[in-house]
Each structure stands twice: as structure tokens, then as C-alpha cells.
């Protein structure tokens, strides 16, 4: 069942199998017929782990989506809740149990916490007086392998809970996930941390590893280095409009846990289509990393060649050939055709959306914000969007970029933009701005600089005018904004192609720098601008581990084929975008690295902002 590792990628099917086995054994702990109530956000990840038929086979009768607003639920005599450890969820479960009790309905309850049970949750159960009638267990589901090179924890709330609310609960989960991964793939020799959370994860990971050190097998190293990056080091990149095919699919339709659902407008049929987006889909694999301008052309040529393949049937001579064609070719062609149709449909949708509604002007403003030019025009453009009551997320994105690229917005502009935003999109957004300020995404320039006397104020104002913002300095030092104008989007030579050559993702550039320099030495000028600082650790003593010949013959040859130092695990804390994944894949191809991207969740600008926005009252 386990697929052999592809082109040097460590085999992550193992993770899936482990998770599946763990889950089935948890189900078996409650023998007989039972209902399964699943936390909404766990549905997709679980789908990737265990199929419905497997669940049925294990005695699952009905599967419900957990709804905390329901006061009671029906179903059979046994019920399993599969939930994230949240207090509100616990309260709702307690309500269910108590309502059953009130009507004297006898039922067996089991709560499976993903990924671990928390004391606070148990205390809620205790407080509600239901602790006695539930059995509690843990399902350590951490990584969901989305693709051969992408692992996700599927924890979108990490960003909010860690950076905004300063809650470290998920840091533990991240560290644990790395410990478990290393138990499978061997200890990772080099660890580089960029940011505060990264350092915390590393410390906790070391702590957890030391504890089990005697029980682990470190002989099979599969991953050479680990780079942990905090999202708050680079908020700019996820806020930029994505222009790669996969990124646009996510922004337009929303990719959930590696699957996408195309509505009838894409499929051109009555029913909608669900597609698994990964490297198994050859067509998708070819276009996912392309700049969007090269997608349709490719797809149409693909369509043509497919048509040619179809046309072969006219040239079939003998009956045997025909039989062969129907048996082997036809099925494949038909499948490809439907996939291709979906992708072309999706492209058309994206194009339709992007050509309307002043997307060009928007993109232009975005790019000049990144460059730091035409400040006045950009502010005017944002105001215009507000006055025209344009999409609130879109506008907010630009405000965020404005602040991030300029080290905050000048107090006057800050105030007026906020006022206008509130007038357009409601008073609730006051809380949103307060959140964004805490996160440091939208700030005013006065915060931080202690301007006391009027004289000082003038001086600091002067300084602000001459001084480059943090972001601009980083751009300069790392040359994030390419100087040359002609970026060949078809055959790119630089990571910046993912943003049409306007901007190289900061996060990916940092990864590149760390790898080429083999650490942070010589990067002091850059790292001083990064919040939370950097940290690196080397566990491999003088690379002895790598040079010692392995007794096992097959192991030895495998090692020579794939020098482990080239396999790099990049871990984004707080999520990453598809564009960043694409950029890293490109970097890998360019420099011969094998990147494995791990993240707390895959995000885009909208999901990122939505997670910290205040929901309007209903």
C-alpha cells in the first residue's frame, strides 16, 4: 500500500497509515454500532485518512457534523465525538448528554480529542457533571499529507491563537508533530529558526526528543535540515494577490485539505465536481506551479494532443488494435478529458473574475506598494475603493500592505482610513483594527517612536521621511524587487515569477539565504530586521553521521543517490500560501534541493484576514 518514495521525497504515506491504524483502533474501543460526530474542521482531514467505507466497516452507523448550536442529538446507543479540544465544544457535548439524561435515554459516549486532550476541556466536562459517563481518548492526528511534498496540520486557528492571543497550546502540537516525524524519518541534523515561535518550537522539540532519546532509532536519516519560519516574520507575502494557477484556484474557489469543489459553472454540467489536487493528477502537476499567463495556452495544447489521441481510433486497423485501445487507452483518455475540461473551466472562471472589477488597477497599486512608490496615489486608490464600497477584504488587504511596507501608516492617514473603513463596513471592524494592531499588521507610525517635545516630533518626522521602512530595507538587502524588467514567466529564472516578477516572497528568500550560507552568519544586517530573531542548531557532529558507511547495502546506495543534506523541511508556523510552496518548489529545482513544506495550515490573504476579523453581529 505504501507507495515508494518519489524522486527522493521521504515517504509520507507512512504517516497516513499510522494515523489510520490509530483511528481504527480507537473506533474498535467501542465495539458495536455507533454514531460518529465530527468537528466540522476535522471532516476534510479525516477524509484524507479514512474512507467512509472503512468507518462503516468499523461499526460506524451514521456520521454527523458537530453542531454546537444543537441542544440535543438523536442516534443510536453509542456515540463517538471526534473533536478539537475546545471548551465551547465541551459545553455543547455536555448539553447533548444532559438532554439525553433528562429523557432517560441510555447512551454510551466517547470523546476523542484531536490531537490531545486538555485539562481545561476535562474541567468543563467535570463542571457540567458528565465526566462520569464519557470515556475520553486522544487521537494524535498531526500531519495530514496533502501531497508528496506538502504536510499540513490543518490548524488554521494557529495564527490567531498564537500571534494574537499569545496562546502557546498549538506550539506543543507543532513540536510534537516534528518529534513524531523524526521518529519515522530520523533525527534532523540542522535546525534553523526564524522568529519567536520557531525558537519555542525548537526548544520544546529538543526537550521532548531528549526524553525519548533511548527509544528512538536514529539510524535512518531522511531529512537533512529543518527551517522553521514564523508567519509574523513575513505577513507581506500572504497578502499579495496570488498569480500562480494553484494559488488562484485557492483564492477563487478555496482548496480545502487538498481537495477542490467546482460548481456547475466550471464543470458545465448539473452536478459539481470534487477534485483531489495533488501530483497524481498529471495535468494539474504540469500547470499548478505555472504563472497564470501560461496556463491556458498549455491546457489548450494539451487538449489538442488529447484530441489527437482520440483520433487515433480512426486509424485503428485490426480488431485486436481496437480492443487494445478500448481496454487501455480509452479509459485513460476519458479521465484525462474530464479533468482537462474542469481545469479549463476553472481557468475561464478565474479569468472572468480577474478581468472584471479593476483587477489591473488593484494589482498595480499592490505592486507599487511593494516598491514603496507613489504613496499618495496608493492611499487615494484605497480611499476610492472604500468610497465605492468595494469588497471589504480586498480593501483591507491593501491597507495591511500599506502599513506593512511603510512601517505603519502616518497617524492622519491611519485615522482617516479607519474611519472610512468603519463607515463602509460597519462598526464591528473597530475590533478588527484593534486585532490587526496587536498583530502589528496595521499600525500607525507613532507607536514605538517616543515623540515627546514638538521639536522631537519634527525631527522624528524628518527621520521618518528619510529613513527606509523595515520592509524596504529588507527588499533592498535581499533584492526582493527584481531590477530587470523582463521576467520570462514561461521559463522563469527567479522565484519572483510567482508574483509576475514584481516581488520575491520574503519567506522563501530567507530560506534560500539560510541554505546557501549554511546558517545565519553574515546575515546580521538582515536578521536584525526580523521580529523574534533567529537561532540555529547543529545536531550533527562534524557530519560524521553522513560519512560513516552504512552496513546495509541497499541503504548505502540509496544514500548516495540522495544526499540527505539536500532534503529540507520548511515549516511555516501560522500557515503558508500556495505561492510560497510554488516558489520553494522552483527554488528546489533551481538549486537541487528537495523541499518538503510543512505548515500549520494552507492560507491565503482572505482566510488569513478573516481569521482575525470580528464577525459582524447576526
Amino acid at each position, binding site marked *: 500500500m505504501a507507495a515508494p518514495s518519489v524522486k527522493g521525497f521521504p515517504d509520507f504515506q507512512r504517516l497516513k497509515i499510522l494515523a489510520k491504524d490509530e483511528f481504527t483502533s480507537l473506533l474498535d474501543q467501542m465495539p458495536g454500532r455507533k454514531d460518529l460526530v465530527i468537528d466540522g474542521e476535522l471532516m476534510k482531514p479525516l477524509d484524507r485518512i479514512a474512507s467512509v467505507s472503512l468507518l462503516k466497516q468499523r461499526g460506524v452507523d451514521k456520521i454527523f457534523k458537530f453542531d454546537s448550536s444543537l441542544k440535543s442529538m438523536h442516534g443510536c446507543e453509542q456515540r463517538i465525538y471526534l473533536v478539537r479540544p475546545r471548551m465551547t465544544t465541551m459545553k455543547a457535548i455536555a448539553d447533548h448528554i444532559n438532554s439525553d439524561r433528562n429523557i432517560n435515554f441510555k447512551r454510551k459516549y466517547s470523546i476523542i480529542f484531536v490531537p490531545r486532550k486538555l485539562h481545561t476541556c476535562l474541567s468543563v466536562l467535570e463542571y457540567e457533571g458528565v465526566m462520569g459517563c464519557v470515556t475520553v481518548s486522544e487521537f494524535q492526528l498531526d500531519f495530514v499529507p496533502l501531497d508528496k511534498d506538502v504536510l499540513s496540520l490543518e490548524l488554521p486557528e494557529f495564527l490567531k491563537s498564537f500571534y494574537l492571543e499569545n496562546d502557546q497550546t498549538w506550539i506543543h502540537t507543532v513540536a510534537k508533530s516534528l518529534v513524531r516525524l523524526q521518529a519515522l524519518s530520523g533525527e534532523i541534523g540542522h535546525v534553523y529558526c526564524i522568529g519567536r515561535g520557531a525558537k519555542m518550537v525548537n526548544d520544546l522539540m529538543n526537550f521532548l526528543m531528549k526524553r525519548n532519546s533511548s527509544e528512538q532509532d536514529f539510524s535512518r536519516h531522511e531529512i537533512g535540515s529543518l527551517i522553521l519560519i514564523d508567519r509574523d516574520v513575513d505577513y507581506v507575502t500572504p497578502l499579495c494577490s496570488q498569480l500562480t494557477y494553484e494559488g488562484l484556484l485557492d483564492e477563487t474557489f478555496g482548496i480545502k485539505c487538498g481537495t477542490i469543489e467546482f460548481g456547475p459553472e466550471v464543470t458545465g454540467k448539473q452536478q459539481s465536481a470534487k477534485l483531489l489536487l495533488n501530483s497524481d493528477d498529471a495535468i494539474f502537476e504540469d500547470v499548478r506551479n505555472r504563472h497564470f499567463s501560461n496556463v491556458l495556452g498549455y491546457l489548450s495544447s494539451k487538449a489538442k494532443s488529447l484530441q489527437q489521441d482520440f483520433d487515433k481510433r480512426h486509424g485503428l486497423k485490426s480488431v485486436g488494435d481496437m480492443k487494445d485501445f478500448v481496454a487501455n487507452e480509452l479509459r485513460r483518455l476519458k479521465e484525462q478529458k474530464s479533468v482537462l475540461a474542469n481545469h479549463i473551466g476553472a481557468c475561464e472562471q478565474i479569468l472572468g473574475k480577474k478581468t472584471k472589477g479593476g483587477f489591473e488597477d488593484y494589482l498595480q497599486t499592490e505592486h507599487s506598494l511593494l516598491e514603496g512608490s507613489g504613496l499618495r496615489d496608493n492611499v487615494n486608490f484605497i480611499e476610492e475603493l472604500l468610497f465605492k464600497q468595494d469588497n471589504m477584504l480586498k480593501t483591507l488587504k491593501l491597507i495591511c500592505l500599506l502599513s506593512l511596507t511603510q512601517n505603519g501608516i502616518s497617524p492622519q492617514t491611519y485615522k482617516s482610513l479607519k474611519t*472610512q473603513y468603519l463607515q463602509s463596513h460597519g462598526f464591528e471592524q473597530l475590533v478588527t483594527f484593534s486585532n490587526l494592531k496587536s498583530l502589528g499588521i496595521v499600525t500607525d507610525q507613532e507607536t514605538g517612536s517616543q515623540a515627546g517635545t514638538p521639536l522631537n516630533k519634527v525631527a522624528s518626522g524628518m527621520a521618518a521621511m528619510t529613513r527606509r521602512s523595515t520592509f524596504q530595507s529588507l527588499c533592498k538587502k535581499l533584492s526582493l524587487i527584481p531590477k530587470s524588467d523582463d521576467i520570462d514567466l514561461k521559463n522563469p529564472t527567479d522565484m519572483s515569477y510567482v508574483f509576475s516578477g514584481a516581488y520575491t516572497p520574503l519567506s522563501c528568500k530567507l530560506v534560500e539565504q539560510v541554505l546557501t550560507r549554511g546558517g545565519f552568519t553574515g546575515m546580521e544586517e538582515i536578521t536584525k530586521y526580523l521580529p523574534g530573531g533567529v537561532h540555529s542548531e547543529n545536531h550533527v557532529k562534524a557530519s560524521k553521521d553522513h560519512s560513516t558507511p552504512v552496513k546495509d547495502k541497499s541503504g548505502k546506495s540509496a544514500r548516495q543517490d540522495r544526499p540527505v543534506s539536500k532534503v529540507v523541511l520548511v515549516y511555516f508556523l501560522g500557515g503558508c500560501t500556495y505561492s510560497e510552496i510554488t516558489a520553494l518548489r522552483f527554488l528546489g529545482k533551481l538549486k537541487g534541493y528537495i523541499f518538503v513544506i510543512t505548515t500549520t495550515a494552507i492560507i491565503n490573504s482572505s482566510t488569513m484576514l478573516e481569521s482575525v476579523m470580528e464577525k459582524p453581529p447576526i
Partner: protein
Amino acid sequence: MATADWNPLGEIYYKKCEVYSMGWSDIVDISKFEVSAAPYGGPIALLKDESKTARVQVSTKPIITVFTAAGKQISQMRWNSGSIHKMGWSHTEDLLFVQDDGVVLVYDMFLTFKKTFGMGQEAKDVKVIDCKIFSSYQGTGIAVLTSTYRVFIINSVDDPRIRRLAEVPGLSSAPSSWAVINLDRQSRALIAKGSELCLIDQGGQYQVQTPDVSTEVTQFLAMSLSFNNRCLAMFTDKGVIWIGSSDLQKKYCEFNTKSPTPPQQLSWCGAGAVVGLWGNMMLVVGPDKDWINFNFDNPVHLVEEEDGLRIIGKYQHEFLYKVPEVTEKIFKIGSMEPGAMLFEASKEFYKGSQKADEYIRIIKDKLEIAVSQCIEAAGHEIDPAKQKPLLRAAAFGKCFLTDYNPEAYVNMCQMLRVLNQVRNHVIGIPLTYSQLQHLSMPILIDRLVLRKLFYYAVKICQYLKIADAEGASRILAHWACYKVQQKNEDDETIARAINQKLGDTPGISYSDIANHALEEGRPDLATRLLDFEPRAGQQVPLLMKMHKDNIALSKAIESGDTDLVYTVLLHLKESMNQGEFFMAIRNMPIAYALFIQYCRQQNRKLMEDLFYQEDNFQEEGTCKVVNSFNEDRMEDRIEELKLAQACFTKAKNEFAKVQTEEQIKLLKYQQRLEEEMNRPYLNLSLHQTIYRLTLANNHKVAEQLRKEFKVPDRRFWWLKINALGECGDWVELERFSKGKKAPVGMEAFVEVCAKHGNMKEAMKYLVKVSPEQKVKCLVKVGERKKAAETAFENKNEEELSYVLSKCGPSDKQLVDTIREKQEFIIIQQRSGSPSECSAKESTSSSDADHNQLALYHVTCQPHNRGYMVPIGYKCTIYVTCPA
């Protein structure tokens, strides 16, 4: 001769051998004591009851002494509780005392008190007249017989749960004898009532049985169950020993001893023979009425073992056991078994005689059997001098086998080495090989630990290469627990000593040791020890138990495991008053943040209090704002907002204050509007509110709101134009356009008309549009040709490109014209040669493939990158020259 001390009992042989000469011979007269010895070579407890021997009634309490099986004293104490009825050992080698009021006291072999429990109120009230300590399937059980002839039973002293057995019908006097039987995973009592036996169980059932005895029986005076609970021996008042199965279904034999008195002890030797002890005379009776008689010089005490019987006397400690089959095979005179042959061969070989070869030849095919027989027989020997020749024979035989697995041999050598070691009188555990197999090695190690023989235990573990986690370090942990009990040493020394010895050995739980120290009443030592504990998960709960809450909290934070932090926080919250609690966490940002997180979900009020206490008015205000969203009633909502406003004032957040104030105003407006117009307005933003009003043709109120909230002109214009466009009020739109000078320019009017498809109206405004916007507007209304012309008139190359970019597939002609014009302009603008700066076209635009979409990429300005402009069904890359 090897068989000299074999005593035949029918077909089989019994052998008695000395294990120890007792170390107590000078001080102990066994007849004056009540003796109790633990099975599996366990220690011997002696109870000297002065009152029994004293001529005058004295009130002195008895003295209890515990010896090893070799007669070395371990401990001694004077009893200080009630009157002891019975003394016995548990399977974990704890000494149990049952008092006549049913109270059971548990001591360890060093006579340190461990725990106590009772056998129930009834037993306490009516007194216990007899008691049995038996081994149950759960461990060691106790059964008591009260003076009302009821039996109470517990199955395990570790988990004493009292059960009352069924009543024996018509029992009017104390039963002549009784026993406890384990049958079908349940303990039952077998009670002799006259000639009948009554089996009673926990379920209240009873079963009366009459065993098949050929002679007349009036009473069963004694009964004894074999070690494995399968066989039963009974002694009748006529001196007959009845031997049968424990379910009374089978009778093996009856043996008339002709003794009128019952034996002092009726025991089993393994499962094969019954032993009766009358004074210094011991009678061994086999199942086929065979018997052996032994006489002793001194009084003895019998201890049953699973494979034999230990006989403890004043001078000697002997072991009576059945000669194992394999030993018999090898040593029996004239035996032709392979083992016997091999043994002979080996003997000859070491003598240097060639006969060895002859013997080997005889058993050539059965050499493997011979080797294993010798190995097995060596195991059963107690004397190392007898083990050696057997092992030597095995080793000798092994040489002739090519692919013999030496594991059995090596294992046996190792086991014997360990066994010989523990049998040494210094340790004094006379364990046989088969007992060890039943007991298992870990338990033997435990027993060494129990005797505080840590060094031996560690050495054995190391010798047997047992993993540190289960072996050496576990023992060290026990040692440490013992160490913390030493009250005469100070905390620091002990902590250091323990750490030195234990270090970071895996498998060591410092928290367990610390817990032990805590139980010993040494919290300071516990704290010191906990410092060595690397696992915060173990450390923190104990610290909380010790009320070292602050340390617990900081350790939990250090660990990075928020779950632990919460555990401490919630505990603190319960145990402190709120003010103190807040003060305690304010200096720990992580704990503080976590607690706020907790409150956010569980107790918002508490969170506000916390912000208030910290003077964090900004956050408090935000809280109140969020609260206001959840209020249903408008009055409550406004009330909350007012509170928020006050908070923002205190936080000096002018902006938030003003916004909140405006929101209150807006809400009031909206409420009024809803009442007046009967349409939903609540929760809309200001923009949306005015928009709706405009849609509803309510321009007056819209204007009022605009003034009230100081809506910027540009916003208002855009809003109104869009709203009017949406509801198609072209008249009002026109009126509006003619009013004050529009801050947004006429192009806005054109745009909205175009958007709602009214090109006629759009044209009206087009004339008023400023020249620089004209081209764009023309494109918007679809007049591309005109736009191109205007652009050309303006001589604006950029505008031309813009028009070009908006051209569709149907504008082929127009595209060509624009191209021409563009080039013309470029040539005009540049004085250089036209050929140099002509546009570069990568593909011809001639064949329009209608099935293809393509993108247009302009790279003329640096900020223009990434334009995605469809220009129709051509695949074209068009690059204009930079000006």
C-alpha cells in the same frame, strides 16, 4: 550413591535434604513460638506469646521476630495492638496480623507498619474465632469465621472488599474444621459439619456434600488443600486420612493412621503426598496408601511449597520433595535413559577412560534428549556440587551435536548461578528451580529489593543483561525511596547522594521518589528531588500537591506545555481569592495570556475584571464592544457601548471613543428608521444605511445622516450615484449631476450608467467628462472606435494601448487601425528612424482561432508588470518600446 537418601513412596521417591543450618539455633526454641513462614523461600515470623507459656496471667504484649529462611534475624518488635489471632504472609511478603476483632494489620518484613483494615462490623461485634490466610486468584485473601459461624472473606489484601459467604444451614457449633477453596475464579469455604461438608460461596449458595469415606465418620478434625487447590486431605475423628480431589468427586485413598488425635499440622508435599505432623514424628502418605515415616529430634514446623515441603527446626532447615522424574531417570540404578548414559560417559571421559566413547555410541541418536535431560536435572539439584557434574555432562554431550541450540544450556547456567546466589545463607531465599520459574525473575528481583538487598539485585540485573529501565534503574529508584526514609541525614546530602547515583539514567522517575519523600513528611527534600525531574508533566502535579504553587506554575510555563499551565492555573483559581490570584499571574505573561484565553471562552466577566485591574482599558473597551454584539435588546447594547466608550476615554483612545459614540448614534437612528419605515436597517454600516435610504428614495434622511456623520463628499457622491443607478432613477441622477460640482468627476456618472446598461443616459454625461478621462469613459460605454479616435487626437500613445487592450475579437479592424496609429505616434514622438522602434510582434495576429484565449503582457512601465489582459483569441506577446 546418588540414590542413597531417596525414600521410596510406592513407585516414586522422596528426598529430604538440608538447605540451611539455622542461624538462630542458640536463641530460638521453635516449640515456644507460633511460627509462620512465607512460601517461595520467604521469611519466617515467630510470635512469642508470653501469656500462653507464662504460669501466671501477665499482660505483657507478645514479641514478634522476623528471620530469613536461614535463621538470620531481620527485625523484631513488641506488639502494641489488640490480641493477635492469626499471623501470616501475603504474596508480596507482607506480614499480616488478624486480631480477634477482625482488624487486619499489615506490616512489611522489617515490621514497619503499612496499613490496616477491618473485616466488617459484624466480625468486630461478635469476634473472630478462626481465620485462614489463603492465596486467592487475586493475590492473598483472608477468611474469618465469627462466633456466629459466619464466614467473611476478602480476596485480596491489596484491595480489601469484604464479602459474606452463605450461611451453613443448621450449624449450631463451631465447625470441626474448614478450609478455603479457589474454584472457578471464586473463593469458597468448605465447612465440616459433622460427617457432612458444606461448600458456601459469595452468591449466598450452599452445597452439602458427603465425601465417600468407607469408615464411619462423625467429624472431620482437619483438612488441608494442596498448593494448587486441586487436592484435598482430611483427617477424621477415627484417625483416617482421606485424600481426594478438592471437588470431592474423586477419592484417591484412605489411610488409617490409628491416631486418635489430629496432627498438629496436616500439609501437602507438593501435590503428590500428604504429610501429617504429630510432635516429633512426621508421616508422609502417598495417594496409593504408601507411607514414609520421619522422626525428628526437635519440634519442627512445616511450610508448603508448590514442589515440596520445607521443614523448619531448631537447628536445621530441610526440604522434602519428590525426586524429579528426570533426576530419577539419570540416577536410578540400572537406568538406560540417554541422560544416564551421557552422565556416565562424561564421568568416564574426565577419568580419561575410553569407555566414554562406548556410552556415547549407545545413545548416539538420542544425544539431544540426553543433553536436555542433564540440563534439566542440573536445575533440580540444590547442591552446586551436584549441579556441576550434570552440567559438565551436558556440555560434554553438546560437543557431539553439530547444530544444537545452546540457549537452554546457557540459560540454565545463568539461572543456577542466580539461584545459588540467592540460596546462600547471607540472602537466605531457598528457592528451587521450578519455584523460580513460577515466580519469575522480575519478582525475585523485587523480593531482593524488598529485603533491601539493592546491590545484589543490581548485580543480578547486570548479569542477566536486563534493560536498565526495568532492571538496574528501577532498583536504584527503590533504593532512593528507601534512602529518603533515612531521617538522620539532612535533605541536601540525601538529594545529592541520590542524584549522584541515579544521574540521568533513563527510566528513573524522580517524581516518584519525591512523592515518597513527601509521604515521609519531607517536603523540602521532595522539592530538591523534583528539581532533577526532567518531565514537567510529572513534576507539576506533585509540586501542586506540596502547595508549591508558584514553583509549579513557573515549571509548567518552562515546559511549554500549556495544558500543564492550565492545570496549575485552574487549581490556583480555586484555592486563592480572586485578587490574590490576579496578582499571582500578572507577572507571568504566558500564564496571564492563557488565563485570558480561558476566560474568553468560559467567563468573559472575569476577563473584563482582569483588564480592569490591570488598567488595560483599551482591551476592556474592546471586550465590551464584543459583548454588545451579543446583546439582544437595543437598550442593553447601547448600555454596553456606553461602557466601552468610557473605557476608551480612560485609555485615551480618542478615535475609538468617537467611533463608539457615532455607533451609538447610528444605532439609535437605525432603530428609529426601522420603526418608521418598517424595513431592516439595524446592523448596517453607515454607508449601507445611507445607500438603502437613497434606494428607498428617502433623500432627506440620507442628507441628514450625511451631515450628522460628516460623510466625505466623495463617498457621498459615489454612494448616491451608485444607488440611483441601481434603482434606475435617471431623473434624480441627472438632477444630482446638475447640483453642486461633483467631487468625483463626471466619469462616475458615465460609469454607473454603463454598469446598469443605460448607454443613452451615459452619453448625456459623456460630453461633460474632462478630456483626460474621455477615452476611458468612451471605452466603458463601448465606443471603442470613438475612443481610439479621441486618443489619437490627444496624441496619446498610452491611451491608445489602453483602448487596444480592451478590444475584443470582433474588433479586428479597429485593432489594425490602432496599431497603425500607434506606430505613427511613436514615430512622431521619436525623431529617430521608425524601423528601430517599431513594435515587436511575436506571432501574427492574422488567424483568429476562436477556441483559444490568450493573455496579453505589457512591460512598458515598471509598475505595470503582471497585467493580465485578454485581447481576444490570439496568442500574442506584445511589447511596446519604453518611451
